[in-house]
């Protein structure tokens, strides 16, 4: 028996960054919003005060803030000739366990994408010719929005989140100390950049001496007390080092809990249903609109939540899986190239180097999730690719993130014993002398990359798991090798005694090998319904009252973390809904 709930103006599926930003905009505009989240209520004072948070075993190793694979995982294979296997343990999909989604346990790098990233296809053709963009493997397409269109929405998100940083380009004027390669911004970040820690000093000096342009990474780790435009106050970061996979007891890391919930949950026109999993979007009889969603509560009872507008704001893979299970839109077929749901999965192409110093005091235990120094000299299209066998690049960065002693026990110079007294000696010496350079590379989708439903494996509700078919594009592999070599040069210039480069893209991709956790695509945006699932307002081409919001909409991934772009797109979509769509419910033009 399916029970039916009262109709809402809007149902929001997943209360992470996308869902909470949209719910805030839409309830402020007077709409009734019901949010449905798979997880329980989790908040700062009730769940992660400072007495609970700094616990590496529980949060860092056992990952108790992540949604467990038992409840929801994917199957994976490199190519269509293989049988996909389920990812049984935690891997690259770091879905949130409760409300706030991954926005509660993320580290906090708060980037904007570069102008190039939104127009990869047209700009590559323009600068290098068609052959560079159409290599027979990559499936490049523009987003249908430009950086300039998104700039005001990036700005709004940064204000809500309180992002710390130093602008590099305000209205076209290059600012000393910032990133000279960034797109023009209307104004500086709301809070100043964080402190420069030891590993950053070494990186900044070496890269400056090499003629490169280091700057402090913009962070959702707040550098000073701040009150955001919603009237919510945040505290200054204490550099405790427990961010990635942890909550934040200080209200210093921007999250839906810290930045939005305090006002959202007070609004009478907002409700949240927790511990309830949306399994599908319900289509109307004529198939042109949707009527709401179906969800299963924690007792296994099935419910219908009718709504005039449905916003899928779940994690990337969940958005795609719900669409596939609902039969909204046509599933992408890599053979014919037809269909759009499941098209253009991409990831992040990571390389870099580990480095160990003699007699330094890096003091790695002082740090913050997103804190580090970066150069963008080899990111995006900031350098000439005419003679290179790839497009795109990577943010090359060093992290002052954490000194997690369990995890770092695996980070010893090559040849060090992994156990025995020799291990103890090596770890006692190098724990405080270790650093890493991480190249967060762009990722281009390929024609053969696909997300569809697995024929064999199911979740606890009996719903088919999502099946990923993917391997790195050769262009990305070449990029990762090129940037790894740059990282090794920098590490040597920093004075590291032991330097060991790494390149995740020198072998096949696997969901179980955690190079990054930035999974992208599957319901991508664009201005052509033949190649995109949603239009530039993230409105479904197949049902005009359905919006699919999040990193599932990115047609390709940049050499940056995705959250800032997720936030900007969510705010833009929410504003389009309450300013335009509700007055004229039709395809937004």
């Amino acid at each position: 028996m399916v029970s039916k709930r009262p109709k809402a103006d809007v149902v929001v599926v997943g209360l992470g960054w996308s869902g909470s930003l949209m719910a805030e905009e839409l309830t402020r505009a007077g709409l009734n919003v019901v949010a449905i989240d798979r997880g329980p209520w989790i908040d700062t004072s009730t769940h992660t005060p400072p007495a609970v948070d700094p616990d590496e075993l529980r949060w860092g190793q056992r990952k108790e803030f992540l949604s467990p694979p038992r409840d929801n995982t994917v199957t994976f294979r490199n190519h269509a000739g293989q049988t996909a296997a389920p990812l049984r343990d935690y891997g690259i999909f770091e879905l949130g366990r409760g409300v706030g989604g991954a926005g509660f346990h993320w580290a906090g790098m708060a980037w904007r994408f570069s102008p190039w990233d939104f127009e990869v296809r047209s700009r590559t053709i323009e600068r290098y010719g068609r052959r560079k963009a159409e290599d027979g493997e990559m499936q490049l397409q523009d987003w249908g929005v430009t950086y300039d269109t998104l700039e005001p929405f990036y700005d709004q998100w940064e204000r809500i989140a309180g992002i710390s940083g130093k602008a590099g380009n305000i209205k076209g004027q290059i600012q000393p100390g910032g990133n000279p390669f960034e797109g023009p911004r209307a104004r500086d970040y709301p809070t100043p950049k964080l402190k420069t820690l030891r590993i950053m000093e070494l990186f900044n000096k070496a890269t400056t001496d090499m003629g490169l342009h280091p700057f402090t990474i913009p962070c959702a780790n707040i550098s000073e007390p701040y009150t955001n435009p919603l009237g919510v106050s945040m505290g200054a970061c204490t550099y405790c080092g427990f961010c990635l996979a942890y909550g934040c007891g200080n209200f210093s890391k921007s999250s839906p809990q810290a930045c939005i919930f305090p006002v959202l949950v007070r609004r009478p026109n907002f409700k949240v249903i927790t511990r309830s999993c949306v399994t599908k979007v319900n289509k109307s009889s004529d198939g042109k609109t949707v009527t709401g969603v179906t969800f299963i509560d924690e007792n296994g009872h099935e419910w219908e939540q009718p709504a005039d507008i449905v916003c899928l704001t779940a994690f990337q893979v969940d958005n795609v899986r719900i669409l596939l299970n609902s039969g909204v839109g046509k599933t992408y077929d890599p053979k014919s190239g037809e269909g759009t749901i499941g098209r253009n999965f991409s990831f992040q192409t990571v390389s870099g180097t580990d480095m160990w110093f003699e007699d330094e005091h890096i003091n790695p235990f002082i740090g913050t999730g997103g804190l580090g120094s970066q150069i963008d000299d080899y990111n995006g299209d900031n350098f000439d690719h005419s003679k290179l066998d790839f497009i795109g690049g990577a943010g090359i960065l060093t992290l002052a993130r954490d000194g997690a002693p369990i995890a770092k026990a695996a980070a010893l110079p090559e040849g060090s014993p992994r156990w025995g007294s020799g291990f103890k000696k090596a770890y006692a010496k190098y724990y405080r002398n270790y650093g890493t350079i991480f190249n967060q590379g762009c990722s281009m989708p390929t024609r053969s990359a696909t997300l569809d439903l697995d024929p064999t494996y199911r979740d606890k509700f009996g719903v088919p798991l999502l099946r990923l078919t993917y391997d790195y594009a050769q262009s990305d592999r070449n990029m990762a090798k090129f940037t790894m070599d740059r990282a090794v040069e920098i590490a040597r210039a920093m004075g590291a005694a032991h330097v060991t480069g790494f390149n995740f893209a020198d072998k096949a991709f696997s969901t179980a090998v955690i190079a990054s956790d930035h999974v992208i695509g599957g319901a991508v945006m664009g201005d052509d319904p033949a190649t995109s699932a949603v239009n530039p307002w993230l409105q479904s081409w197949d049902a005009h009252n359905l919006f699919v919001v999040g990193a599932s909409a990115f047609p390709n991934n940049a050499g940056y973390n995705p959250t800032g772009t997720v936030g900007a797109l969510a705010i833009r979509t929410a504003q389009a809904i309450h300013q335009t769509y509700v007055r004229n419910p039709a395809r937004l033009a």
Partner: protein
Amino acid sequence: MRRREILSLGVAVGAVPAARLLAAEMDAFPHDMALDPAFVPKPAPGGAPQVLTRDIDRRTITAVFDRFIPGDELGPSASAAGCVEFLDAQLAGPFGQGATLYRAGPKAVGEDALMQKPQFIATPRERYETGLRALEAYARRTHQGSFADLKPEQQDAILTGMEKGEIELAPEVNTRAFFELMLANAREGYFADPLYGGNKDMAGWKMIGFPGARYDYRLYADRTGEDLGLEPVSLVPKA
């Protein structure tokens, strides 16, 4: 509706019979801001063994852990730091039960190679049970003695063989993966918060210079490149 009610809905709330049929819905600000008891860290129970109840298994794992992290001038051995008690408590809890793992079958041929990582339908507890027995049987077969009674060089030779994949303990055991599981758990026991039964007196943290759960470094962050000489702090309240 208050948060306490929200979180307990569906778990048979006698006072609100209708609640059974309602999804957990919140439509007001949660006034109760107290720490959720379920989120308070739970210390390892101590006392009698819960999973490693066979004396021979305890002797074997103690010997393995103490080859991984022997007692020396840098600090106590793994077992002296409580790592065996740590492991027992971990195996008795959600970790040992594989509570977060997707364990539905079938386990496909070639699954490990595709994932580039061994995957298991068995729980860590089951893997320890079969692995420790196979390790002991291997020692008896090849060295005519209990693993725990072999000379350190003999123990190291077996462990090195396991690590490199040069020996197979038993057909039902992924030997290399079992070695890695034991090594990972020994490190966890030595470097996790003492709350969990290992890292006694914060010996692991003192060894490497990790100051533990201090939570506020604003007074020190500007002193870059200095040996700050900070003593570690744990989540266990001082008596």
